[in-house]
């Protein structure tokens, strides 16, 4: 198990190396550079050239890459061109928001998707099954930002039930020891603040969680159907186990194996969905930060952000694979 984890972590090295080269070339292939955003209307060719020189962008690409990576291995991701703050500080400040949003989204997807997929799989052709099939197809087909705008318009703008922007009401000032606002509210004993942060999470989490919800529902349904036909389920029936034990202990536990994998993959993919969701709901996390960095051609931020997210993606999947060993003894003992 440990050997497996170490091997996976070592695999990170070539992945990050390749990815860093791609990102490095990609940002430089974009039309324009950081000078366009910095100078705006005041731009003249001379000023632009001066800015480019100041950030070392006039040097050959391999030279730039070499000195960048030299700093990265020392943990220095450079300084944001826009904010003049170290990229690592910016990430540290915003990452908790994204984690909070992604966790809420995946929680929503799991808590709704598994029971729904389970019922659909046990009763194929029932109204629950048919409704969830149509719902899943819609959920996968609708773009994240479109759903985000729709939810915001209906529930925030028209009905006014929930807040549609930000992470916390501006009138609330409270300490943020962890950066996870809901948790912060609870830790500092400021429960109204926690409740307010939670309400701010609802709409973005639904928008972001809908695709994972649809996929988890489908996978659970398929897995439950498949496992229901397994011989060991027939054995459990032949043993006279109650219906509840047959479904929970024998069917559901085995059906969770493929579902766990898909939850891991979806958690990784959430990071990309978060960019759009955070932008729609002005949720100040990594996603909206990265999106802004692309518009302003803030090269160090784009590079550092993507490398950081890649590491997170690999770690999340490693965690999922390790958790797989907990539910499947065949993985654990081989």
């Amino acid at each position, binding site marked *: 198990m440990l050997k497996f984890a170490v091997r996976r972590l070592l695999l990170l090295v070539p992945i990050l190396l390749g990815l860093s080269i791609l990102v490095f070339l990609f940002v430089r292939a974009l039309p324009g550079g950081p000078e366009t955003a910095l100078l705006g209307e005041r731009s003249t060719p001379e000023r632009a050239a001066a800015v480019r020189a100041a950030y070392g962008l006039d040097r050959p690409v391999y030279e730039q890459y070499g000195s960048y990576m030299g700093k990265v291995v020392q943990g220095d991701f450079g300084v944001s061109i826009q904010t003049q703050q170290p990229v690592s500080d910016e990430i540290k400040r915003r990452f908790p928001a994204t984690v909070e949003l992604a966790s809420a989204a995946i929680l929503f997807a799991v808590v709704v998707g598994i029971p729904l997929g389970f019922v659909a799989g046990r009763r194929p052709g029932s109204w629950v099954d048919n409704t969830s099939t149509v719902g899943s197809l819609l959920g996968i087909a609708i773009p994240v930002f479109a759903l985000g705008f729709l939810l915001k318009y209906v529930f925030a703008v028209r009905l006014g039930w929930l807040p549609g922007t930000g992470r916390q009401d501006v009138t609330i000032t409270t300490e943020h020891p962890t950066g996870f606002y809901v948790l912060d509210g609870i830790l500092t004993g400021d429960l109204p603040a926690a409740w307010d942060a939670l309400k701010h999470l609802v709409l973005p989490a639904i928008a972001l969680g809908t695709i994972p919800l649809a996929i988890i529902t489908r996978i659970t349904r398929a897995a439950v159907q498949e496992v229901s036909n397994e011989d060991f389920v027939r*054995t459990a029936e032949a043993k*006279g*186990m109650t219906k509840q034990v047959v479904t929970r202990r024998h069917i559901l536990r085995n059906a969770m194996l493929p579902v766990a994998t898909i939850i891991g993959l979806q958690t990784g993919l959430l990071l990309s969905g978060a960019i759009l969701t955070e932008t729609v709901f002005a949720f100040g996390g990594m996603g909206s930060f990265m999106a802004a960095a692309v518009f302003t051609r803030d090269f160090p931020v784009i590079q550092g952000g993507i490398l950081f997210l890649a590491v997170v993606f690999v770690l999340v999947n490693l965690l999922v694979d390790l958790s797989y060993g907990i539910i499947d003894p065949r993985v654990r003992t081989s």
Partner: protein
Amino acid sequence: MTAPVAHRESVPGHLLVGTPLLKVRDLTVTFASRGRRPVRAVDGIDLDVAAGSTVGIVGESGSGKSVTSLAAMGLLGKRGVTVTGSVEFDGEDLLNMPEDELRSVRGREIAMIFQDPMSSLNPVLTVGRQITEILERHKGLKGQAAKDRAAELLASVGIGDSVRRLRSFPHQLSGGMRQRVMIAMALACEPRLLIADEPTTALDVTISAQILELLRVLVKDTGTALILITHDLGVVAGLCDQVHVMYSGRIVESAPRRPLFAEPQHPYTTGLLASVPRLDQPRGLPLLPIPGSPSDTLPWAQGCAFSPRCTRRVDACVGHPPVIGPAPSRVPGHLVRCVNPVPYDVEEPTP
């Protein structure tokens, strides 16, 4: 589709005095799925199992052996399955029993063992858990008491180091061990009837012999009645009191073990016997598979289902369904469904 049920008068009630433990009458199972013709997998089976006796059901793949036992246990599910006839266990009608009641009969009064011990055990639960859950359910044993009993059961089926084995997962055991675990599970509540559906098909020859011997000893010691389903007459030879040979959903020959092996009268039975290597047979007799495959069949309503493959076919085989009746040998309890049975006093080398 249904033929006149003339054969029903000649139920094999012969051997039995009093009520049998299991009494199956005219059991018929039809599978229907959308867009396909309904399949009648079991077509009017009559079967009696006396308490403590061992009954064999033999037939090629697809003859309906498993479906018969699953239908009797109510394990076929409901969608697209029609089960008619009656199945009485100890005088109680299993087919019309309320679900909850049936669940408490299964595993406690009637237990089952299946063909593939790997896929029949839950891969994510320990062997111990899979045994204790049945003790918990039917015997109210919990915690350490259940574990102790489970270890005893494992020991009784010949698994050494049984306390430690409780913590093993199925994939950590060999095929033979897994089947022993299945047997321990089946016997956990001292059932009165055990149905073993091809318990040794997935195992190699030596292991298979050990498992059969274990079954034989256990059912003898506990007085459990056994229905042994197999496609191998060799397996039946050592164990069964009464043997039923099935073909295409019907019983074509029923006999006590001795007459079945000594004087088989249905050409299908002789075909099966000729395809099994036997020690008591004169040497030089070639091993002959039955020609054709079970798919070369005739619907029973149109005549004998075996006739397309039969070497003794006569005109009377086709046209109307053959009736099951006392065999020409007049051995009590020997029934055959054939219009041109194999002469019983002549050594009949299969042509």
